[in-house]
């Protein structure tokens, strides 16, 4: 037995480190191993990067950003990009004529028509699920951000408004805006995936008529055939979404209107355990993996593995959000639901002193140096570096436990300090920086007063999204990636009372809303800068959230992966992104 063990260990020691360092494994199949499972594949529902990654590769929008550019567009479903020069944008900037490309077929073989483009946009606007992406197009096309009022009741005239905004004239799609809206084309570049009307109706989705649209508004996630199936025009078709193994199989669309992709198959797989992801990369069974900054040292020097670092981002991530009014129904995150030492009341974070207490209890510098390995600087506001409106001289919070204690002592008239509290902070499973943020907050806040108890819970991404949308988490750590490269895309979703996060947080401030709107309509760059500086000063004072770091990212891939380029606008960039240009060699 002893001799056998000795022989085995000697044999292992003499083996090459990796026999696969150079040979291309599965040359036609690209496997990306990540941590997240998708929420939904419905282009009008999905508003998370994991879902958007699949949608990007299966469906196609009217336009797309060219290569690494975040400003130059190329037409996809559209035959041309409208400009004032080519006469497809009216002189008043309110009418866009978008010619639809001919000869495109959906993956089921049916031809794409301008009516499909119209139906897709109407569906996107009218579905308008709570917390979804519809506001991105509702705002420029109708002037309002939701089809429902603050009480959840449908606005009158929505059908009329959206039909006035989106119509078809011959082979052209016509968009009529209530007022000029400069970023409209860049929004359409990510948020106009064209679906097949025929396929949708055949499979029980909205039939495109006025009579049924209200029933279709704000639907349940699983009700739509688009939830787990897809029929796009993109370079890959969805073969299967296996929710059991958290795996997507995409197969090449051989009838793609451009040159078909070089890859035959793309696998996107969720594996939470980093060790397993790393071994899959090492063995060549994964071509690219998701890995946070703290894990970089474990990936450096692996044979056949390439690290591409210092990639700019267009995101504000991570951000710690406070929910001003937590939904207490069936909510385990807030303990007893009272300020009795065993829980928190639903409006616990409505008190600015509580929020400031947390703001001063976070170690921003330590997080950047230890977790982000020094790659980044403290964020100064919700607008990231690289976008107009970013203000590096903005006041910021620093770790100051004395000040944190002062604020906690003042909070709730002294009751917080006296009674203590207990609640749960959540992060999405597998996200190490977000997990560390929760742990830093827990450690520092609990060190202030033995009656302060903060639990940290790891939650799977789809469940996390559900809890977030239902306003159940008193504090949650998330981030925001740009939908289009404009500061308004950060100011609105992170600060405006109708924005994605404030709606969930129940945060609202009239002055903030006024400034967000002023920033959106201002055309003078200097004026815009002033508005956003004022807005971010208010952001600092009101503390609806804590912005942590402006950082850079890195990509880990096998050296045999060719054709990859970074465009920070692509979902899940730089880990996921667009698979069409990739091949293995």
């Amino acid at each position, binding site marked *: 037995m002893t001799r056998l063990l000795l022989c085995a260990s000697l044999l292992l020691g003499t083996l090459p480190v990796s026999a696969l360092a150079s040979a291309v494994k599965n040359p036609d199949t690209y496997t990306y191993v990540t941590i997240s499972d998708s929420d939904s594949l419905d282009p009008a529902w999905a508003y998370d990067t994991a879902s958007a990654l699949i949608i990007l590769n299966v469906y196609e929008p009217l336009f797309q950003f060219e290569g690494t550019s975040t400003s130059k567009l190329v037409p996809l479903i559209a035959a041309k990009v409208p400009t004032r020069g080519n006469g497809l944008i009216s002189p008043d900037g309110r009418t866009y004529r978008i010619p639809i490309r001919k000869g495109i077929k959906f993956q089921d073989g049916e031809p794409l028509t301008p009516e499909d483009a119209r139906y897709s946009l109407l569906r996107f606007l009218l579905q308008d699920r709570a917390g979804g992406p519809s506001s991105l197009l509702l705002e420029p096309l109708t002037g309002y951000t939701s089809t429902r009022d603050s009480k959840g009741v449908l606005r009158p005239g929505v059908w009329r408004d959206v039909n006035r905004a989106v119509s078809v004239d011959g082979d052209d799609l016509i968009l009529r805006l209530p007022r000029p809206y400069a970023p409209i084309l860049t929004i359409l570049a990510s948020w106009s995936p064209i679906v097949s009307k025929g396929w949708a109706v055949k499979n029980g989705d909205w039939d495109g008529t006025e009579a049924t649209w209200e029933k279709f508004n704000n639907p349940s996630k699983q009700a739509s055939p688009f939830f787990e199936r897809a029929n796009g025009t993109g370079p890959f078709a969805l073969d299967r979404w296996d*929710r059991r193994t958290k*795996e997507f199989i995409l197969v090449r669309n051989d009838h793609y209107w451009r040159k078909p992709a070089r890859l035959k198959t793309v696998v996107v797989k969720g594996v939470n355990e980093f*060790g397993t992801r790393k071994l899959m990369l090492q063995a060549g069974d994964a071509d690219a993996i998701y890995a946070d900054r703290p894990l970089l040292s474990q990936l450096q020097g692996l044979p056949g593995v390439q690290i591409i670092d210092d990639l700019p981002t267009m995101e504000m991530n991570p951000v710690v959000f406070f929910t001003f009014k937590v939904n207490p129904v*069936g909510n385990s995150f807030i303990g007893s639901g009272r300020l009795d030492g065993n829980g928190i009341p639903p409006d616990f974070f409505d008190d600015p002193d509580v929020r400031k207490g947390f703001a001063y209890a976070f170690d921003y510098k330590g997080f950047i140096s230890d977790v982000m390995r020094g790659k980044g600087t403290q964020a100064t506001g919700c607008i990231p570096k690289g976008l107009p409106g970013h203000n590096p001289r903005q006041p910021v919070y620093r770790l100051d436990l004395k000040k944190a204690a002062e604020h906690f002592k003042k909070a709730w008239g002294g009751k917080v300090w006296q009674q203590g509290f207990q609640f749960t902070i959540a992060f999405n499973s597998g996200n190490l920086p977000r997990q560390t943020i929760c742990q830093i907050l827990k450690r520092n806040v609990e060190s202030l007063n033995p009656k302060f108890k903060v639990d940290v819970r790891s939650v799977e991404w789809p469940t996390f999204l559900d809890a977030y949308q239902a306003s159940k988490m008193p504090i949650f750590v998330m981030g925001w990636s740009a939908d289009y490269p404009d500061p308004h895309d950060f100011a609105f979703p992170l600060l405006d009372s109708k924005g994605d996060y404030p709606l969930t947080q129940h945060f609202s401030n009239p002055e903030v809303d006024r400034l967000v709107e002023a920033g959106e309509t201002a055309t003078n760059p200097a004026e815009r800068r002033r508005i956003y500086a004022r807005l971010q000063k208010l952001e600092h004072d009101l503390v609806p959230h804590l912005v942590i770091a402006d950082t850079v990212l890195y990509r880990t891939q096998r050296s045999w992966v060719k054709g990859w380029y970074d465009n920070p606008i692509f979902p899940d960039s730089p880990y996921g992104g667009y698979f069409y240009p990739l091949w293995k060699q």
Partner: protein
Amino acid sequence: MVKYVLKRLAFLPLVMFGVTFLLFFLLQFLSPEMRASLYVKDPRQLSQLDAVIEKYGLRKPMPVQYGIWLKQVAHGDLGYSETAKMPVADAIRAFFPATFELTLVTFFPILIVGVFFGVLSAVYRDRLLDHVTRFVAITGYSLPSFVLGLLLLMVFYGHLHWFPPGRYTLDTDMLVHGSAFHHYTGLLSLDCALNGDWAACGDVLKHLVLPAATLLYISVALLLRITRSSMLEELTKDYVRTARAKGLPERTIIRKHALANALIPVVTLSSLLFIGLLGGVVITETVFDFPGIGRWGVQAAQQLDIPGVLGSTLLAATLFVLANLISDILYAVVDPRIRVGN
């Protein structure tokens, strides 16, 4: 014997009633709102929770609620699991076969290795073989499964590229989800064999090797030690001395006399091991990215997916009862005194 088995079977519904009642009783510690989430299949219903509470009588006395719930369960409606993103009954159908297959592949080697080396260890007490098996048993017992799992992955996957994690490779994946593939049993390796695709069968088995080896190494230790101590006890008893005095060969004494008696505690432990494996081995399933019931159950618990937790617990309880029944029957087979006494 038949009478004995029938009697045991008659107890089954009673035990199941006890288990479900206990589960339901524990659920009463949650607020009606939280329990209402059992019945909410559509997020829009969240705003109508009062109506859901009213409809299902969640503020009514516990026995009434229990009756309503039991009726639902009897109809196979266990609610909707948010973590699995499918109804609980579907989730059990989706996740359980993988765990069952892993259990089958693991359990019998555990039994054979554990009993065989346990007996040898007792027979060769304090000799080299005994020391080696005890050393192996102690290391197996004390080594955390995630450490062993990762070590095995590093060597046999990262280094040698022999046994990958997951359930199967992409080719097998495409094959088993193709329209031509027939799912006869739900056990993939067997189904692949029945479909005549031996390459796929080999691929599935290859993916089972490392999780099975991890479980084998960790689980066999206890069985080995129990077999050894039980066997040692039997070997010192009078009837063994008598048998030796009668001149019976040592092999016969061990096989036919001592082993049969030493197996009683082994049967108990084996049934517990079997249940433990069937209930899902969470860490092993996580490390090897194996889509089994244990990983789902823990995710459901972590995320307070009450229908998921209830469903997986109910399954575990049912399995426990069944395994107990089987071990009771096996007792009777191994030791006739039990069925006579009964």
